């Protein structure tokens, strides 16, 4: 096995090099070098861009922009991103978090990609040289995407409106059984006025629980009132089966964990 790595200073040149068959973009290495180590012969050459701007975090006026090379560790320790820290810390162990990037997590197949679940709930925008697109559009087309992600942007949630939960069998670091991120706005009387819920491991990539979102509107977060939302949580899901859990098990426990997240 040999890989040829080419380093570019310009995103334009790197994007051009990426069009060659067998070429992948090297971010933190936790996905593509792993694939190469495992014997994935589809990866024959790698490109990367050594622009320090890709590692920048910008927070201003309630808007956040994370460069694609920002690591999970950098998100987890950033004082203004405390709301996102639980999602960043959900990825891997300490060494992986020092390497794994925001951009890479968008491509991580289930059961990985817990941070992308959080970004989906936040309705993030994915930035490439060709422009910006909603994360939902990006995730739907990521398998055939041949353009390098340069950043993601989103509105910083208020800590109390954003919730994240990862369920794993091994603590504190384990592969996801599932993960859930929810962005909820409540009226002063506690009624849900808007809800955006994203699920990990419920398909090969993060998906939204749209039926549950709809069922939550106008409800208060009580056991009784959220029951219809929990019953609807499984609509449209196609959970993965892996050594950690079967699709059947994941589907069975989803409403339980969604309930805990909402009532917590």
């Amino acid at each position, binding site marked *: 096995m040999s890989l040829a*790595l080419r380093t570019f200073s310009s995103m334009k040149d790197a994007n051009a090099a990426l069009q060659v068959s067998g070429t992948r973009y*090297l971010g933190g*290495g936790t996905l593509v070098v*792993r694939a190469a180590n495992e014997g994935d012969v589809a990866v024959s050459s*790698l490109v990367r861009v050594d622009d320090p701007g890709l590692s920048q975090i910008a927070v201003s006026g309630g808007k956040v922009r994370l460069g694609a090379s920002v690591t999970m560790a950098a998100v987890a320790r950033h004082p203004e991103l405390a709301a996102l820290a639980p999602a960043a810390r959900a990825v*891997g*162990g300490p060494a992986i978090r*020092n*390497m794994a990037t925001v951009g890479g997590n968008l491509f991580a197949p289930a059961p990985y990609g817990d941070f992308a679940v959080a970004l989906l709930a936040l309705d993030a925008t994915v930035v490439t040289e060709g422009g910006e697109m909603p994360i939902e559009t990006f995730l739907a087309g990521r398998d055939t995407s041949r353009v390098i992600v340069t950043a993601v942007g989103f509105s910083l949630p208020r800590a109390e409106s954003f919730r994240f939960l990862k369920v794993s069998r091994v603590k504190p670091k384990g592969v996801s059984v599932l993960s859930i991120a929810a962005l909820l706005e409540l009226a002063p009387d506690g009624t849900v006025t808007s809800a955006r819920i994203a699920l990990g491991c419920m398909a090969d990539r993060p998906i939204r629980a749209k039926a549950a979102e709809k069922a939550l509107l106008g409800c208060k977060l009580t056991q009784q009132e959220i029951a219809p939302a929990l019953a609807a949580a499984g609509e449209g899901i196609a959970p993965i089966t892996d050594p950690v859990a079967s699709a059947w098990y994941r589907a069975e426990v989803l409403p339980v964990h969604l309930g805990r997240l909402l009532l917590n």
Partner: protein
Amino acid sequence: MAKVPVQFTLNGSEKAEFVESGTTLLAALRDKIGDTSPKGGCHQGTCGACSVIIDGELRLSCLTLAETCGGADIKTTAGLAEGGVLHPLQRAFLDAFATQCGFCTPGMIMAAKVLLDRTPNPSREDVVEALSGNICRCTGYEPIIQAVLLAARANSQNAA
């Protein structure tokens, strides 16, 4: 495949090597430079046996390409002992029986060193979190956790 030059500092001394493009840092350290303290366990980023410290941060050398480490400051467990005297973490791992087959030990010690460098008096939870990316199939972890806490106490006594 063309070879590429790589230059970095390993445990305080300058190293320069030609490696094939795409060579992992783990392979460069073990097969080219001869530092066999980082171990190749899973090569998947799961076991932590290949952990090294790059520019003060814990990294997995099996998932890091050597040619991306130009100019880096790399530390491995092989560089910890000074003048034949074991590092307090190495001493503690022996004293607390925290090593059996020893394969995970260099990675555990690197993860623990990063922790103690930043948090000299860690709680048990801090230690568990710091070691959470490192797998041990022999000890059941408890002696390793105790060894790190023992090393922290030894450090603070020496500093006092």
